[in-house]
Structure formats: structure tokens, C-alpha cells
């Protein structure tokens, strides 16, 4: 260090600082997957996880949990979109099927995509979906109406204090989007 000329020292400092700059630029982007991981672990932001693909759950009969269903259209979405069963009561581990109704009232075909959110947020990680219409996009012909199913159960490890949870879907018009792949990740 002592023998280094001032110019060499300056260029060493600059190189190191530039590395920090590049690293922090990368860190900004690394926050995107990091955020998804943290959401997945903590249920932050009410995000539910993807398709449940482990062993069949065993119902625990001595607890009852109310699951409420909500539907809303995001701005600009013109479909009729409502849950067929606004509320069900289930035991943890009990597999249940419910459905939403969607109708395209327009004279042109459209593609919709439902995005889920759970309240309270911490309940999100205990809501397990075996099947869900939100796993794929939903094309509808003019005037077409469909019933869209969710097969789910509530994990038995859900904290005692949670007796009621709400699953809300926002429906987005993605007709003009080109979303690649059949399943969108981190659903």
C-alpha cells in the first residue's frame, strides 16, 4: 500500500466503487425474486402460493374455518364476475370445491386473468389450492358464460386465532397482453 502511487490508488478506489455500483444495480433486480420468496414464506401481501402437489390432506374435524369469496373487476374490465358460493365453512384439511361465474357481455372475444389475494395476509400461506382458474388465463367468446372452479383446502397448521379468511380475486383484462407459458408463476 505504501508504495502505491496516488494515481494507482485512485484508480483502485474507483474500480472498487464501480463494482459496488454494478452490484447494487443488480441487487435492485435481485429484489424481485427475493420479494417473491419472502412473500411465499411469510404470506406477505396476501399472495397465495402455486398449485399444491403434495400428499392428500387429512381433515381435522374439531375446527371450523369460514372461507369467504370475493370478486372484483380491475379498471377497464367489463365482465360479469361473481362467486357462486359467497361463503363456505370447512374443517382444516377438508378438500372443497367452489366456483365463480364469469360472463363476457361484449360482442368481441376477450381474455381474462384472475389474481388472488388473501386477508388476513398471514392466512395466505395456509390456503392450499389443488386446482384454480387463476392458474391459467381465461378466454371467453362474445356472450359466453363459464363456471370456473377452485379446489382447495385450508392447511391444518393455520394459527388458532384465524377463524375466518377471505379470498379475493381481481379480474384483469389481458386481451392485449402476450403472456408466454401456460401458467404464470407465483400464483
Amino acid at each position, binding site marked *: 500500500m505504501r508504495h502505491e502511487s496516488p494515481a494507482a490508488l*485512485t484508480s483502485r*478506489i474507483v474500480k472498487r466503487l464501480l463494482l*459496488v455500483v454494478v452490484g*447494487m444495480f443488480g441487487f435492485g433486480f435481485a429484489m*424481485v425474486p427475493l420479494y417473491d420468496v419472502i412473500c411465499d414464506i411469510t404470506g406477505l*401481501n396476501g399472495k397465495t402460493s402455486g398449485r399444491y402437489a403434495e400428499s392428500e390432506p387429512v381433515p381435522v374435524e374439531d375446527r371450523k374455518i369460514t372461507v369467504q369469496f370475493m370478486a372484483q373487476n380491475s379498471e377497464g374490465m367489463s365482465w360479469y364476475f361473481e362467486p357462486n358460493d359467497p361463503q363456505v365453512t370447512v374443517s382444516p384439511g377438508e378438500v372443497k370445491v367452489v366456483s365463480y361465474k364469469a360472463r363476457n357481455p361484449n360482442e368481441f372475444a376477450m381474455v381474462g386473468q384472475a*389474481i388472488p389475494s388473501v386477508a388476513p395476509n398471514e392466512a395466505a400461506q395456509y390456503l392450499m389450492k389443488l386446482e384454480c382458474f387463476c392458474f391459467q388465463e381465461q378466454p371467453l367468446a362474445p356472450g359466453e358464460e363459464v363456471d370456473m372452479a377452485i379446489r382447495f383446502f385450508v392447511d391444518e397448521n393455520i394459527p388458532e386465532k384465524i377463524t375466518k379468511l377471505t379470498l379475493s380475486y381481481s379480474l384483469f383484462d389481458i386481451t392485449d*397482453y402476450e403472456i408466454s407459458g401456460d401458467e404464470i408463476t407465483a400464483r
Partner: protein
Amino acid sequence: MSASHDDHHHGPAKGLTRWLYTTNHKDIGSLYLWFSFAMFLLGGTFAMVIRAELFQPGLQLVEPNFFNQMTTMHGLVMVFGAVMPAFVGLANWMIPMMIGAPDMALPRMNNWSFWILPFAFAMLSATLFMEAGAPNFGWTFYAPLSTTYAPETVTFFIFAVHIMGASSIMGSINIIATVLNMRAPGMTLMKMPLFVWTWLITAYLLIAVMPVLAGVVTMMLFDIHFGTSFFNAAGGGDPVLFQHVFWFFGHPEVYIMILPAFGVISAIIPTFARKRLFGYDSMVYATASIAFLSFIVWAHHMFTVGMPIAGELFFMYATMLIAVPTGVKVFNWVATMFRGSMTFETPMLFAIAFVVLFTMGGFTGLMLAITPADFQYHDTYFVVAHFHYVLVPGAVFSIMAATYYWLPKWTGHMYDERLGKLHFWLSFIGVNVLFFPQHFLGLAGMPRRIPDYALQFADFNWISSIGGFLFGASQLILLVVVIKCVKGGKKATAQVWEGAQGLEWTLDSPAPYHTFTTPPDPKLIHAQ
């Protein structure tokens, strides 16, 4: 002027090219300071439009959309155009003179980092004249307001932010290299003036977070033009992610705007109290602690967005912890003044006003840190009052204090003390009449960023607007004082202020174009 006759040590070149091609830290410092003042007036003009519209309830002067453009542009111009460049200008002027260096370590990059700024702000301001209008999504540009629902001019905004970021990063690299590598023999780290210390730490903050800002606007660019879905829920993204990334930049950013102010105040108070700074070491450690804590409190801007209870508690306690090192600083300034032989020249008046009013802004920050209370205060005028108290009588007052303090060193003339004091008192009264009632408005529930409001808010808004016009108009006095001082006035001595300590005061006034081409006598370097 004790200019050497060696032909490497000539004076400034003549004409416009002097300023275009200059690599001299004093020239570049002046450019930054003048640019910052121009932006201060521009951002101030936007603020006057806001206050004029809010003068009475109802929509009188501007369309709501234009009102939103004004709040957005006011914030962006003041943060990135006025406050940050002013501190970089002060750093350019003072750091080499304070540590006994002949210039900044990377003088050519210094020229470049200044001269890209006018282009960034020209591009940003040009959006005002475009059909789609200027950015209208607030200075925090939350997605999807700034992506899905943004005016087309958002791309100009994105590139302007990229350029500002590049400028800040280059400036910071330069400052760090200068401080680490160009100190005169005998100027150990713990003998550096606090202004140098606070800027060194600020520069590290800038290097850590400006790339994150560049990253977040790049993601916006991709979402808008290339069909990605970083922040678009329909495509699997998450708008809340935007807020996390933005505030990871944004919270250190607010300390970037206040740490150099701490350095300025730590220089001025000892001079006019004629005592050494109380607790120099603790000041350094407090600054470093604040810088560290700034990285782990970002989500306190997002309490109402939704977070696990453990997260809300963590960010609440971490935020409150910042009051400890900040309190150390405030107590040290007060202890420095205690039993000092104080005089109240303009820089000292601004410095004392800083200590009092910044502390008030700090306390409202503590109130906002309390998570359950924040659910009430969030997005109200209470928040507006809080951050204007720390930024205007905080950061801006410190820049004005620094200007009055070092102006005789820069120009060689004393400024007009009577005008300076007039400027101070009008600003002091104006700023309080302007922002204090906004606390009441916020507690009563008036939301921020609205052009119209319910009738019960009328009186306090009326008072606030009067204060705003007074504060805005008084800033023209500063312009007069500076121009008068540049043109002439009583000759300043080298020492300028009786109690001033430090290497910059061993130089002639005005400071020669080239200084410390040979390092200063180590005997001149004292412990702080």
C-alpha cells in the same frame, strides 16, 4: 492573490468555454451552486402554483391534472435539482480546501457529472410543454400510476432520472476518492472537519442506493415499453414490490439530503460560539449509525400497505432507534453553544433555526413512526408538514447558512449583513407560517396531493398559502445578496470569522484559483 508564476498555475480561462471545459473544483462548485439555485426558484415556482390553488377551497386556477403535475415536478426538482446539487456544489468547493488537496481526485469526471445535469432537467421540464403533460404521479412515482396509467412523457422522466443518477454516482465516486486519497499529510481521518466526514458517508449512501433507483426506473421502462410485468398484477407482477424497491432507495435518499447539512451546522456553530465542537468523535459515529439505520427502515413508508405484524413492529422500532444518534447530534450542537461567546451573524441565525426546526421535524417523524398512529397520519398534510420541516428549515436552511458562511471566502467580499438578516427573518417567519398549520390540517384529516378540499380546512390553508408567498418572495433577497457580494463589498480577510477554524481559513479571500498545490504545513492541522 498569491498566485505562483509557474505556467501550470495560471488563472481561469476567459469566456463561456471556461465554464464548459473547466476541471477546477471551485468553478464546478460554483456551477453546481448556481444550477441548484435556478432549480430552487423553478421548484419554488411550482410550489407557488400549488399554494395559490390551495389558497381557498374549490378549483380556481389550474386543472386537477395540472395540479398533480405541479406537485410531482415540485418534488422532483427540489430533491434532485435543488438540494442534492447544492450539497455537491458545497462539497466541490470546500472538501479540497478543507483537507488540503489541490483539487478533486477526478477533475474531468467532475466536469462531466455537472454538465449532464442541465440536460436531465431540461428533458424533465420539457414535458411541461408536451401534449401529454408533465409526470403527474407524485415524486414517489408509485406503480401502476407511473406505468399503466402514466402519461406518455413518463419515458422522458425515466431517462432524466437515469442521468441524474449517473451524475450523483460520478460525484460520489469523486468525493470518496478525494477524501480517501488526497488528504494533506497530517490530515488523519479523525481530524477531518465534520462536513468532510458527513459527505464521505453520504457519498457511500449514494453509491449504494442510486443504482437501485436506476434499477427501479429501468423496470418501469421495461413494463411500459417491453411488455414485462415487474409491477403489473395482471401479468404476475406486484405493485407493492415497486414500493419496496423505491423506498429501499428512498429512505437512504432522505438522509443523503440531511447528513451534509449536519456537517455544515457542525462547522458553523463552533465558529460563532467560539468553542470547539462538543463531542467530535460521537458526531462521526452518530453519522455512521444514522447511515446504517437508513437501510433497515424503508417499510415505515408503507405501514398501511400491509405487512405481517412482526414487520410493522420491526420497522417501527428500527425507525425510532434513529432518534438516538440524531439526538446525540442535537445535544452536541446545544452543548457547543452552551456558555460559548455567541454572536448572531446570518450563518449562525440559520444554523440555530436549523437546530430548532429540524428537531421539530424529527419529532413529527417519531410520531409518524408509531405504526398504529401512522394509520391515521398516512398520506395526510401531517406527513407534508413533517418532511417539509426537515427539508426546508433543515436541509435548505443549512445550504443557506453554508452560503452565507463561506460566501466571503468564495468572493473575497463580505455580504450585506443587514440584507442577510432580513432574508433570515422573513424566511424564518415565512417557513413557519407556511408549514406549521399543515400539522393541524393533517391531524384534522386533510389528504395530501389534492387540488380541492373540504371547507373546514379553509382557514389553515389560507394561512399556509400566505406563509408560502412570503417565504417564496424572500428567497429573491438571497439572490440580491449573492449578486451584490460577487460584485463588491467590504474586503474579507483570510480568517473572515473571528472564531473560524480549519484549513480553508488559512487561504486568502477570495480563495486563489489553485490552492494547496503544495500541501499545507501539518502544524496548521488541528484536532477538531
